[in-house]
């Protein structure tokens, strides 16, 4: 369980987060939503100790401020929004960096091929020898996710859950890979690990999140199960747009929901 207890964060003299509290239990995918500048990424950066904060953040009951970088790295991995590399690393070399101080939890013999397995999981099998700098933005984002997965490959090691912090993990991906990456995150949570993801797409959030925390102007507006947070009144309060949950557009106007993929799948099963 990640427990954030009323933290304040100021960046460059401006207060971004005001007394934010939230919980993200192991075994669940917790989404953070909110408009631009609401403090989502700042909250994640405080969780990663990139920003100084006042208040306390607990990881399974321990104050993260008291933990060493290596210790934390063995318990949680972080997917950044974007990464450029100043040197010509191959894709495999980037993914293998996830093994720097992480604790994949696999047998040493399997470790050598873990980067390949991680690449396959993000649909990049066979990309190992390509140069990272020559991939598209979406491919680079998936390479980074493969690196992050290597760091905490097993969601649970001897009863201790591990965590994934994802900052807009699907922001530059096509719909197929959006679903694929969210499936990876979801299955990490299903296997007992914890996931905190900053998400922009409300439909993907509705489809995948077990719990949602909504931020506006650095404060928590609502948090709880998706059906409690994704309501007309909460969405209008958070995003300042009169949205209607579950309303279909006028007949004849095309609209495509990621949920329809599950619908097709279940129909095929039936």
């Amino acid at each position, binding site marked *: 369980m990640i427990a954030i207890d009323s933290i304040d964060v100021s960046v460059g003299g401006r207060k971004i987060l005001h007394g934010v509290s939230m919980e993200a239990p192991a075994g669940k995918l917790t989404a953070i939503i909110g408009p631009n500048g609401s403090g989502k990424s700042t909250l994640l950066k405080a969780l*990663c100790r990139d920003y100084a904060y006042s208040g306390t953040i607990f990881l399974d009951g321990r104050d993260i401020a008291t933990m060493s970088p290596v210790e934390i790295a*063995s318990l949680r991995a972080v997917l950044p929004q974007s*990464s450029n590399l*100043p*040197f010509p690393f191959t*894709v495999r070399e*980037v993914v*293998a960096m996830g093994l*720097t101080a*992480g604790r994949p939890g696999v047998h040493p013999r399997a470790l050598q091929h873990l980067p390949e397995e991680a690449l396959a999981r993000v649909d990049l099998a066979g990309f190992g020898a390509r140069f990272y700098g020559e991939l598209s933005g979406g491919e680079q984002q998936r390479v980074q996710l493969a690196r992050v997965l290597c760091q905490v490959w097993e969601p649970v090691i001897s009863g201790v859950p591990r965590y994934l912090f994802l900052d807009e993990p699907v922001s530059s991906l096509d719909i197929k890979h959006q679903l694929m990456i969210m499936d990876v995150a979801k299955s990490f949570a299903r296997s007992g690990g914890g996931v905190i993801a900053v998400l922009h797409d409300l439909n993907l959030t509705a489809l995948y999140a077990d719990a949602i925390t909504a931020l506006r102007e650095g404060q928590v507006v609502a948090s709880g199960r998706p059906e409690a947070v994704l309501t007309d009144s909460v969405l209008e309060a958070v995003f300042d747009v009169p949205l209607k949950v579950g309303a279909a557009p006028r007949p004849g106007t095309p609209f495509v929901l990621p949920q329809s993929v599950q619908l097709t799948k279940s129909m095929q099963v039936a």
Partner: protein
Amino acid sequence: MAGTMTLPASNTLARPAGDRSHIGRITVIGLVFALLAAMVLSMTTGASGASAINLVGHWLGFGTDDAAVFKDYAVIVNIRMPRMILGVLIGAGLAVSGLLMQGLFRNPLADPGLVGVSSGAALGAVIIIVLGGTALAPFTTALGIWSLPAAAFGGGLLTTFVLYRVATRGGQTAIATMLLAGIAIGALAGAFSGVLTYIASENQLRDLTFWGMGSLAGATWIKVLAAGPIIFVALAAAGFLAKGLNAMTLGEATASHLGVPVQRFKRITIVAVAAATGASVAVSGGIGFVGIVVPHLLRLVIGPDHRYLLPASALLGATFLLFCDALSRTIVAPAELPIGIVTAAFGGPFFLWILLHRRSAFAW
């Protein structure tokens, strides 16, 4: 650098695609032999006709002419050997400090010589050369032969620290800011050195001129003793930074997420750079371009993995400097060129070549 790098097709079943560690290992082993060859070259070339082979033969019991061997012994053991050892240490030190700075600043163009660190170290050395006998006599008396390298280390440390503070914001270093800050710091250090040169005596002036051009010519066992341990410790410390340097290429924040204690890592890196550069500058003056040419060439061959890049840079830096030194001794024999001129003659065009062939994809 794609296109310049092709992975061998052999053994690909056992080796994952994109894993270049075997090239790194082979290169390091090859460079060990290259360095040994360069050491032999360094021991056997020189203005005097002294023959290292005769000397070894004499030790093995084949020698006949004792007087000639005694003269050769003096040349080889008192002149060539310390020169060779200094060449190895300084070449390795300069190449590794270049590599460390490139990793720290996440930029392949960072080099102690280009961004003012050498100028700062030189200022420290000039202060000791000019004021060591008078105003700073207590300091030089206390530190003895180590006062010059210690002062150069101090100057290098100060400039690296200032440069890092100025050029790096939130873990990101802007190349323009870094180079411009380097120019400003270098100019400032140069101005102070200029003032000191102005008040220097005739003899000090001559010392300063030859020292500033960069040379291994004045190598003595004293200098080996003064600079050697400092460079050696810096190189040994650098050996522990490889994984951290790899992680740092992803940015400071990500390196910390991967478990690198970033603040401590940066402090160690800055001190190692300043120590290696400072000690090198103190005994050999300004030898430029080793720190940029050597790591860059190696990145083309083995890729940017610092676990192999670090030892390979140390080995190739030492080999390159011994080779340039041998050239500087023979090109205009019996006189000799300052080695800084030789490395600049190789390094200047090479640097321009890098600029012409750089790829925007790598954010230079």
